[in-house]
């Protein structure tokens, strides 16, 4: 028997190897632990915090819009959207397929939304897949979303316009922000709504408010544990409109079935009490994205319901323009009250005859008669004396050919031609005949109903061109002063009153108020001579003349300007007259006196321009 404990059986080199390996192991990992935990420890601690703490935006409520009487016309309602937090989603395709199943959405469309969103939304923020979930879909998702990590129901605001088409042209609408808008405004996230049209667009910053921020502790599956609000969201500001919903409603009703515009303006403040463009569209349709077929229907509608005729509709002003040409003539000294002209019903220029609307002529007319009876020949001659460039400069000073600056997007400037303009536009020289046409508001001259109302407002309020305003808090903004002496201004108003008392706007007459008006009939198609003029009803709709009636009314210290345009309405007084009358009846109360009194006026008006 042998005691072997003292004998070395292990290979010497092997034993050394084992020792070296343990030593190396110790050194290697001590260094590595030191590097990660001590040397870089603080950096990693911050990363762990970033991992766990997410900053999440809190939506702010968009401001509400009310009418003058405090009735809501644009409100935000809660709606539920379904978002996907990419970082937490295990299988995007399967999840999207499930979402499509729950909501009935098209899977391909969802994939499209997802791909688009991937570029914009941070991986830990919900990418909105479906907006405005129905309650059935909501219930189905709530019951199942724990099995689908990454899905998140998001409560969002949805804009609603209780009045729909009635206020559509004023309010416009909000809709999901597009790429360009997202690019421009970093505060927007995908799926946010922004103003696209109307006040919603022009007052976007005012209405939107600012998003808040909160910090949430989130686990790797995206579940939120604790949260802390860092920045409170700031709600958007409210707006009270100058629009009187009742009046707006009345005006819209009066234009029902026709295309046209009504502007009711307080001339002393520039506030718009009604601003109607017909036909209109339902702006609620756009909030959730208008379906393609509906959109084509609106876009291709020959009546152009999307166009706001008060600011974007441009029409020849017709005889309404004589108020401007007369003002120009008086101010620049090209005519006096006493200067007279004999109207024979036509005026020869070169080899062309320019007709007065009244066959046979008005006989001798001074300025007052020329305005009251809307004598074309008088203004042909006056315009010819002044020349187009002078008329152009004066019209610009009175706010024509330039936008009114109203708080609505895409306003059109209109057109006051000049010799330069024609040269540039057509490369042709201006002709005398074109000056004559422009002098009676035909030819190239184009104005919007709002420009006419602003000009009339200035005539009434003492010469101040005021910015038409829609928002009650806004202080009146004086944009310019009419280059017109007070005496001449009052003279023009008097002729308008005379027009109501004995001229082409007799329908408006009421004993308890001072009302002045000027009708206009804007030719759509150039007619060779007056003989070819036919009754409106006999002509195809699109060739019928546009009917204007620009008016002011004053009673008990309250003053208003009412301008009505009816597209293809025929003669100004006939179609626009009853509308303006109804507006004054609302503004001043029903006219006293027998209603029968108004009847003969219609017949008298029929011939009038």
């Amino acid at each position, binding site marked *: *028997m*042998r*005691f*072997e*404990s003292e*004998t*070395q*059986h*292990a*290979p010497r*080199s*092997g*034993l050394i*190897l*084992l*020792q070296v*390996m*343990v030593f190396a*192991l*110790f050194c290697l*990992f*001590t260094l*590595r*632990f*030191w590097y*990660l*935990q*001590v040397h*870089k*420890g*603080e*950096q*990693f*601690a911050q*990363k*762990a*915090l970033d*991992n*766990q703490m997410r900053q999440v935006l809190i939506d702010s409520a968009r401001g509400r819009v009310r009418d003058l009487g405090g009735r809501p016309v644009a409100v935000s309602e809660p709606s539920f959207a379904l978002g996907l937090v990419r*970082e937490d989603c295990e299988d995007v395709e399967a999840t999207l397929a499930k979402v499509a199943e729950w909501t009935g959405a098209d899977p391909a469309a969802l994939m499209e939304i997802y791909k688009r969103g991937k570029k914009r939304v941070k*991986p830990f923020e919900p990418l909105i897949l479906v907006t405005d979930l129905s309650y059935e879909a909501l219930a189905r998702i709530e019951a199942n979303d724990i099995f689908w990590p990454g899905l998140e129901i998001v409560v969002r605001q949805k804009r609603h316009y209780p009045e729909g088409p009635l206020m559509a042209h004023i309010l416009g609408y909000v809709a999901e922000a597009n790429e360009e808008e997202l690019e421009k405004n970093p505060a927007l996230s995908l799926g946010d709504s922004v103003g696209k049209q109307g006040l919603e667009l022009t007052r976007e910053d005012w209405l939107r408010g600012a998003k808040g921020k909160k910090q949430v*502790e*989130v*686990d*790797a*599956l995206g*579940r939120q*544990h*604790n949260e802390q609000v860092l920045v409170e969201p700031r709600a958007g500001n409210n707006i009270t409109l100058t629009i009187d919903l009742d009046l707006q409603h009345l005006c819209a009703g009066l234009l029902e079935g026709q295309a046209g515009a009504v502007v009711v303006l307080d001339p002393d403040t520039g506030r718009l009490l009604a601003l109607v463009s017909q036909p209109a569209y339902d702006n609620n349709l756009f909030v959730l994205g208008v379906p393609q077929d509906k959109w084509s229907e609106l876009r291709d509608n020959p009546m152009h319901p999307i166009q706001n005729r008060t600011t974007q509709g441009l029409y020849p002003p017709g005889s309404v323009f004589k108020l401007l040409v007369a003002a120009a003539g008086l101010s620049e000294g090209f005519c006096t009250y006493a200067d007279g002209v004999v109207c024979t019903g036509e005026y020869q220029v070169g080899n062309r005859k320019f007709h007065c609307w009244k066959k046979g002529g008005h006989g001798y007319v001074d300025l007052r008669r020329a305005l009251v009876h809307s004598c074309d020949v008088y203004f042909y001659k006056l315009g010819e004396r002044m020349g187009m460039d002078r008329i152009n400069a004066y019209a610009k000073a009175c706010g024509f050919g330039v936008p009114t600056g109203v708080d609505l997007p895409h306003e059109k400037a209109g057109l006051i031609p000049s010799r330069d303009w024609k040269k540039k536009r057509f490369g042709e020289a201006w002709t005398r005949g074109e000056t004559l046409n422009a002098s009676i508001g035909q030819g190239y001259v184009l104005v919007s109903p709002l420009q006419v109302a602003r000009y009339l407002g200035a005539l009434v309020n003492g010469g101040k061109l005021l910015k038409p305003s829609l928002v009650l808090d806004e202080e009146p903004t004086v944009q310019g002063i009419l280059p017109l002496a007070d005496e001449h201004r009052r003279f023009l108003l008097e002729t308008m009153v005379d027009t109501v008392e004995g001229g082409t706007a007799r329908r408006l007459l009421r004993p308890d108020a001072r009302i002045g008006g000027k009708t206009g009939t804007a030719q759509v198609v150039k007619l060779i001579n007056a003989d070819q003029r036919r009754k409106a009803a006999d002509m195809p709709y699109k060739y019928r003349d546009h009917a204007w009636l620009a008016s002011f009314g004053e009673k008990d210290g309250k003053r208003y300007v009412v301008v009505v345009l009816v597209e293809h309405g025929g003669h100004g007084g006939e179609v626009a007259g009853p509308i303006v009358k109804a507006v004054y009846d609302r503004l001043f109360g029903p006219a006293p006196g027998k209603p029968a009194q108004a009847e003969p006026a219609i017949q008298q008006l029929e011939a009038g321009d």
Partner: protein
Amino acid sequence: MSPIDRRFVVSANWPLLVLALAIFAVGVLNLYSASGFRMGEELSLQAFFNRQVLWGSCGLFAMLLVVLVDYKHLASAAWPLFFVTILLLLLVLVAGKSVSGARRWLIFGGVNFQPSELAKFAVLILGAKLLARRTEKLGWIELLAIVGIGMAPAFLVVVEPDLGTGLNILLLLFGLILYRGISGPVFKTLLVAVPILLPCGWFLLKPYQKQRILTLLDPEKDPLGSGYHIIQSRIAIGSGQMWGKGFLEGTQSQLRYLPEKHTDFALAVFAEEWGFVGCIVLLVLFCLFLLQIYATARTAKDRFGSYLAAGVFFYFFWQILINMGMVLGIMPVVGIPLPFISYGGSATIVNYCLVGIVLNVSMRRFVFKKS
């Protein structure tokens, strides 16, 4: 000779057992924290912790069985054990139970069994037996024979596929070969040949394995994909800083940012909560544990015993090196657990059995040998 002799008790490597139990205790404690994850304000536990305690008890019992039988009988059982293992490994490829794409399990009357675990013992015992026969450094013939014997089971395990275990078996054998020593000319040839052949091995790797190596070099390239494990693990460890976030306070682990936190990445949970100081304590425990195995290898009464202990040394050494290296982000992600720290039933039992083999060798070092 009674199985339990007073001599055995005196000469047994008690520090090794104490260290193994200490590390296992740390592991269980850590699993308790790793099983917890926050649900709102609450901390919820999963069953890993309880089960690991159960596995530990089973392991200790298995270790006791291993200790009872004199290890010299293992030498005579080496070849039969090896062939049975090969047979079972072949069987598993044909009739094994498939779990998530890998055939690793055999079912014997309701008991699940992994032949790859048996392969570790078979290679350890046969390797020790063959290498202990002589003392001179390995020449070409013996080296190729040994490598060939090791390759057979390792290959069968790798095709299951179970790369981690296959690698473990090969590295164990590789360690034993180094322990014995390679003769000068062979060593020099290999020194030149291996660095040349190694890049060729790159082309044998599967795409996902290549990806793991590339990811290690630049984890930020794909932070939510293959780089995720490495990045999150490094954040967890680094954010522990000097003193750690405290027991049950690890946010990375409790908010589930840490993947595989019960198993392969359990060390990251520990590092996050106990900091640099805790990690060094654990590292020291592991080093002392390895040194105790080394001590037994040095003082074994015969070469077979010494080689057995050295084999166990390498088995643990490689696992510690690879797992820590992977968790600390200096080695590719390979599914190799950290002994006694990572959760795992069969791994725990195998680990205790291997500790048992070392204890077996240590307690019989003074026993008189009949001549």
